[in-house]
């Protein structure tokens, strides 16, 4: 299981309905990209971090391991904003408002990422996917997504074992051997995926498979107080950001 999904299964909020957590986490993400970066995104960032490390109980170390990925992209992506092409100062020169734009982008992206991480760290995929049918996603698409989700772990494990076997047979010692091994790895993944699907089909056919994959979903009800508190937090953040925007900018 992947680290974020494993953390979600052990989360304090695991039993909460995904809609509760979507309102809070994805609401924070929407605010992060909609409000002015300063002070709006900064406030969202602080609020999301407080909720993640406080009430949601996400371990800081795990959060950092997941959070550094989007942060790395944001830093790389913000660098081009520091320079401008053409203009009176030469072909390539420092952009006059480059640091401000880069800083605002970093604030917005890092705050938005935390909102999604709040949802991901508290909601296992196995709780979310089956409920997407009620949200209007066609059942066949949800079934395919469920099979993809469950088979990905098995296939990744197979790929890891094949890689280890190839390495033990000196399959990565030269460039030519590496290419050969890599080609074999890709082909093996394809063969194993289809072989597993065929065996799954045989097993399900023996159990009266009629084209729909029924799975048990842990029962959960939407909490009105939790959702109301989330909406109140989002409204307070919006009001605070718009109030402080003038004095702080």
């Amino acid at each position, binding site marked *: 299981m*992947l680290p*974020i*999904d494993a953390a979600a299964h052990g989360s304090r909020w695991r039993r909460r309905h995904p809609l509760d957590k979507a309102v809070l986490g994805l609401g924070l*993400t929407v605010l992060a*990209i909609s409000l002015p970066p300063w002070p709006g995104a900064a406030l969202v960032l602080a609020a999301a971090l407080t909720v993640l490390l406080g009430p949601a109980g996400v371990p800081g170390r795990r959060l950092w391991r*997941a*959070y550094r990925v*989007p942060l790395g992209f944001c830093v*790389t*992506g913000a660098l*081009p904003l520091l320079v*401008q*092409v*053409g*203009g009176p100062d030469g072909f390539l020169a420092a952009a*006059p*408002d*480059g640091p401000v*734009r880069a800083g605002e982008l970093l604030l*917005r*992206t*890092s705050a*938005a990422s935390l*909102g*999604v991480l709040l*949802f*991901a760290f508290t909601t296992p995929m196995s709780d*979310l996917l089956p409920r997407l049918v009620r949200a209007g996603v*066609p059942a*066949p698409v949800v*079934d*395919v*997504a469920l*099979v*993809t989700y*469950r*088979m*990905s*772990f098995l*296939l*990744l494990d197979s790929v*890891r074992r094949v*890689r280890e076997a190839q*390495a033990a047979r000196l399959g*990565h010692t030269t460039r030519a051997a590496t*290419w*050969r091994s890599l*080609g074999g790895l*890709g*082909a093996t*993944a*394809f*063969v194993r*995926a*289809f072989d*597993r*699907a*065929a065996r*799954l089909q045989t097993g399900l056919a023996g159990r009266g498979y009629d084209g729909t*994959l029924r799975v048990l979903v842990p029962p959960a009800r939407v909490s009105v107080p939790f959702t109301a508190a989330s909406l109140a937090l989002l409204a307070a953040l919006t009001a605070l950001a718009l109030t402080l925007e003038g004095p702080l900018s």
Partner: protein
Amino acid sequence: MVPVSQETGQGASTIHEVLERVRRVMHIAEGFLPPAHAIAWGVASAPFVVHGVRSLTREVREHPESTLLLGASGAFTFVLSALKLPSVTGSCSHPTGTGLGAILFRPPIMAVLGTITLLFQALLLAHGGLTTLGANVFSMAIVGPWAGYGVYRVLRRGQAPLMVAVFFAAFVADLSTYCVTSVQLALAFPDPGSGFLGALGKFGSIFAVTQIPLAVSEGLLTVLVMRLLVKSSRGELTRLGVLLSKGTKQEAMAP
């Protein structure tokens, strides 16, 4: 993110390490695009994804067992992007997998499988994002597969050998994905001095240095994979319409 890893080639010891490598495939991160751009790319992607969903739903209703094969295809696409790809420049990155996926499963199905994969990467790996899902779907699940598949069909109709067509399909799919990402970023962040074109030059030059060699690498890897599949999985490739069944003169076409 621009790939810079210089690993030694030893196998990853955990699933997490394998997936650390998935993350270096280029996606636009959460919150990176302004709201108007995020919505616009979502709207642009929607017709293709809806078309793919209709194709997939029809296929599953007619052949219920296809659910499992399509799920396996999605898992294969997900895992394919985890393979470490040595670049001809000496660095390494990871294949987008869009070219091979389009040849095997056709672009409409890839639009759905790609969307599912990108959703998983956003929620399970914190890579990409939900607000940027539309933009990422447009580049990786729509333009890449369609461009790669278009080149593949043209070359096959021109009697090009299978492996030549496979190489150029993977090369074009990879490169077009990154070109579209550069356009998306340039539209969102125009250069203060030279506008959209200047920004396109900035983002494009950053990607061109790394992505052209990597597109060549992905083409080579895809050829190697396809060569092995032709030997080991002829039945599946025939079922998918990639290879001719015995006695068939014209190559199978997607509906």
